């Protein structure tokens, strides 16, 4: 009798349905990259025009929008920095705008109201772009892991300029460097 019951239990166990298998994938490889786009999400041309301003005025034109696509899979906190590597100058006239004339702010837009849809800290207040790096966005402590379906964090930045009152007329151009760093 015991044997029969044991046989029954054994067959019952063998007949388990459903059955399952565990699967483990080891994700490998490193990503640490910065891609610049314009306001329309096209690759940035490498130059933007802040338009024409009168002395004593300040503007953040839409043509000064750059979106920094920050991609890191390290799982550690990273920073997006901006610095001015060449001052705004008119070489033909020998004129140079003072350091701090170029400005940047985290863009406030319908897609990014107060930058709140980004998981990290976007500096939405305007700040001067100096000849040393300044942080415009800090990721979460885990590098924004999981945000945007793991496709990266796209940080909208708006560059502007403030022209000193007594600045002579000229065609000023300079260079800005954006850096992704841990």
């Amino acid at each position, binding site marked *: 009798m015991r044997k029969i019951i044991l046989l029954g239990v054994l067959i019952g166990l063998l007949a388990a349905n459903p059955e399952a298998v565990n699967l483990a994938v080891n994700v490998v490889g490193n990503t640490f990259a910065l891609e610049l786009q314009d306001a329309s999400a096209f690759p940035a041309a490498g130059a933007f025009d802040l338009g024409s301003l009168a002395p004593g005025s300040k503007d953040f034109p839409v043509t000064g929008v750059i979106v920094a696509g920050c991609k890191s899979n390290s799982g550690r906190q990273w920073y997006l920095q901006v610095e001015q590597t060449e001052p705004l100058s008119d070489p033909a006239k020998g004129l140079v705008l003072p350091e701090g004339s170029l400005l940047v702010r985290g863009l406030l837009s319908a897609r990014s109201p107060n930058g709140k849809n980004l998981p990290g800290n976007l500096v939405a207040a305007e700040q001067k772009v100096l000849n040393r790096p300044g942080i415009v966005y800090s990721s979460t402590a*885990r590098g924004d892991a999981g945000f945007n379906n793991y496709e990266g964090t796209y940080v909208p930045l708006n560059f502007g300029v403030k022209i000193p009152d007594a600045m002579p007329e000229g065609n000023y151009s300079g260079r800005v460097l954006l850096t992704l760093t841990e």
Partner: protein
Amino acid sequence: MKKIIFSILLVVLLHADLMVDVRPKELNADNVLRFNAEVGSGFYGASEGSIKITIDRNGADLSKKKVYLKMDDWQSPDGLSLPNGNLQWKIYHKTNGVAISPSDWVAYSTYETPAFELDDSTGHIEIELGTMLRYVPPVQPNGEYRTRIEVLVD
């Protein structure tokens, strides 16, 4: 005596049950299907990603023809996940006994989904499923992500 007859009947009835076995094609110590995938890329169907399903039916259970597949949500020790829908299966090899099956890659679902259909024949059925992880996003942190694939015949 009645108890013995009842028990024999019970065993006979249990015999009518189907037997399903699911395991990695390449057996390993902990019986887990393992493979590597590069960020910005994926994993395409090599042998270490294959699953072997064995089904034995007889008696009343020949009426159970549908084979369902279901996967759990991905999990990592850090509480991260991989996108669902990127893990896919395809029949690489099958013995007689499978009546209807897709020929192309099909995404695993977190819902119980009919995958293929068996015919009326008795006997031992073996099915080998290939695995493709279509795309691992570029910003996916390194580490081991786990899921569980369930096979149900009904």
